[in-house]
């Protein structure tokens, strides 16, 4: 029988998946080399959302850059704002008052909740668990309403300023957050019961898209993808910023480096984020939310219209922009996808000379080919979903 079987011709099939594909989030193209269903090689082609962030920031004043930073990882725009403000404040040599730092921690964690809920919800719904997707979107909507009540916008908020925030928290912020968290915990409990022992979900996520610890470090991965392999590197713990050193929280670390561990890491971080926000709200001190430096912070309207100094400071800041002293600095925060770093070079003027964002998911896409080699085309969907590539951050 075997001798009769003719030698069938076979060739490696080259297939392009993307840039617009219903199951991959974001505009990204995979040039796949397939042998049947098995992926032999994957060349990632990105840059479809490249908008020239670096060059645009060189043309804008230091404050005008903040809306640009919103649009980096647009699922967690507050973290981008906070990261940028911290980097510029490091150049200035200013430290914001404690109340501002606690509020920045709270909004960073709310943004992280938003990001992780989007990622896990979408990843689950792409696998067919649409109900879980909807539950997480409902949880995310509660966070969105809190952010909208606080900042005025749902997604790209521009809430943080150099030297402080745009305005202080509203009166009922703590009650809203507590009420929302009760509902979110219930929803996440439902999602957990739907997914964690679900045979189909485990078959599609566990032991798929595996990357080893050494490989992950070699590829400069950070964030939940790195922590799922077992490396305990979180910028909030390793290089504490703001008031994270005063807060008690854990960092979930996986062991297998597969999609399921990444999913569990993100869910664990959601729980920890809620814990951090609740602690921060309890410890929130009273006080100002701006640094006491008239060169960088706009004065109150009463002073602008009532005193000559206020008028002058307001005029200088609006017309010339804040002048950041010359120098260079690198400052990193823990974004939803990993280490979000800002490398800023200032020539002493009102505009950045060079503004570089270290994009965690751009670097993660470099490791994607290795994660998907040997797996099937259908495994691309959960693997890519759990990497949480946000086009705005990857391509800038």
């Amino acid at each position, binding site marked *: 029988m075997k001798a009769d079987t003719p030698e069938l011709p076979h060739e490696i099939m080259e297939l392009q998946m993307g840039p617009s594909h219903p199951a991959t989030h974001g505009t990204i193209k995979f040039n796949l080399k397939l042998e049947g269903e098995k992926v032999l090689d994957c060349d990632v082609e990105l*840059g479809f959302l490249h908008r*020239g962030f670096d060059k645009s920031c060189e043309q804008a004043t230091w404050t005008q850059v903040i809306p640009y930073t919103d649009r980096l990882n647009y699922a967690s725009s507050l973290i981008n704002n906070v990261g940028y403000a911290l980097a510029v404040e*490091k150049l200035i*040599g200013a430290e914001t008052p404690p109340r501002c730092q606690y509020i920045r921690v709270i909004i960073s964690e709310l943004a992280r909740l938003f990001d992780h809920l989007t990622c896990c919800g979408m990843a689950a719904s792409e696998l067919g668990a649409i109900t879980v997707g909807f539950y997480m979107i409902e949880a995310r909507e509660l966070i969105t309403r809190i952010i909208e009540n606080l900042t005025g916008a749902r997604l790209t908020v521009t809430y943080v300023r150099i030297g402080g925030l745009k305005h202080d928290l509203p009166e009922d912020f703590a009650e809203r957050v507590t009420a929302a968290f009760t509902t979110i915990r219930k929803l996440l409990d439902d999602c957990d019961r739907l997914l964690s022992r679900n045979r189909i979900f485990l078959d599609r996520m566990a032991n798929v898209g595996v990357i080893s610890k050494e490989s992950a470090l070699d*590829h400069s991965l950070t964030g939940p993808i790195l922590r799922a392999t077992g490396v305990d590197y979180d910028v909030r713990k390793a290089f504490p910023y703001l008031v994270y050193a005063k807060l008690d929280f854990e960092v979930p670390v996986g062991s297998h480096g597969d999609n399921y561990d990444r999913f569990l890491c993100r869910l664990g971080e959601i729980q920890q984020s809620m814990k951090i926000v609740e602690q921060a709200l309890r410890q929130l001190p009273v006080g100002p939310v701006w640094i006491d430096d008239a060169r960088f912070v706009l004065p109150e309207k009463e002073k602008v219209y009532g005193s000559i100094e206020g008028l002058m400071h307001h005029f200088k800041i609006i017309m010339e922009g804040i002048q950041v002293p010359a*120098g260079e600095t690198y400052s990193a925060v823990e974004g939803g996808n990993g*280490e979000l770093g800002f490398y800023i070079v200032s020539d002493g003027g009102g505009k950045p000379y060079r503004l570089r964002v270290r994009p965690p998911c*751009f*670097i993660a896409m470099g490791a994607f080919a290795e994660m998907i080699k040997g797996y099937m085309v259908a495994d691309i969907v959960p693997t890519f979903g759990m990497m949480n590539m946000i086009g705005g951050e990857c*391509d800038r």
Partner: protein
Amino acid sequence: MAEASPQLQQIQDRLGAKVLSLTEPRGDQVVALDRAGLRESFRLLKEDPELSFNFLSDITAVDYWHKQEPRFEVVYQLVSLQQRRRLRVRVAVPEGDAVVDSLTPLWRGANYLEREVWDLYGIRFSDHPDLRRILLYDEFVGHPLRKDYPVNQCQPRVPERHVDGTFVDERSRNKLLRLQKTLAKKN
């Protein structure tokens, strides 16, 4: 050089003549290295048990056009995970000979980062396995993050790429070729 902290002094001891300067702006630790033998310098930084900067965080470049010679500077951010230390390495690159050793043999994560620097600045990385544009399309002319690239620069129109076995709209391609011919004749 002013009194460098003991940690920076350690780096000076290990790398010797390759270290051009040690600075500590705003509390960061910054080392300026010589471009020659860069891969060996980084290998020392990575593998020396006392330095152990085993994690490459970022590679980028800055264009100091007319502000300082040499024109470019490639900036590396390293992290030592065990010691929880950060280090910044700056390597000056002249405009005429904009080539730097690639760090892909040491860290595979350098692949995409160096491709981005090539794409946006035009700085080559020798021995890079696959140095091509990453964020911009292949037919893009110029390196946009250089300071002499105007912000509102227009790019030439390019004909649709021809890929074997796919449909190419011949009418639109012929129209573009005719347009280019007429424009060339006018000039």
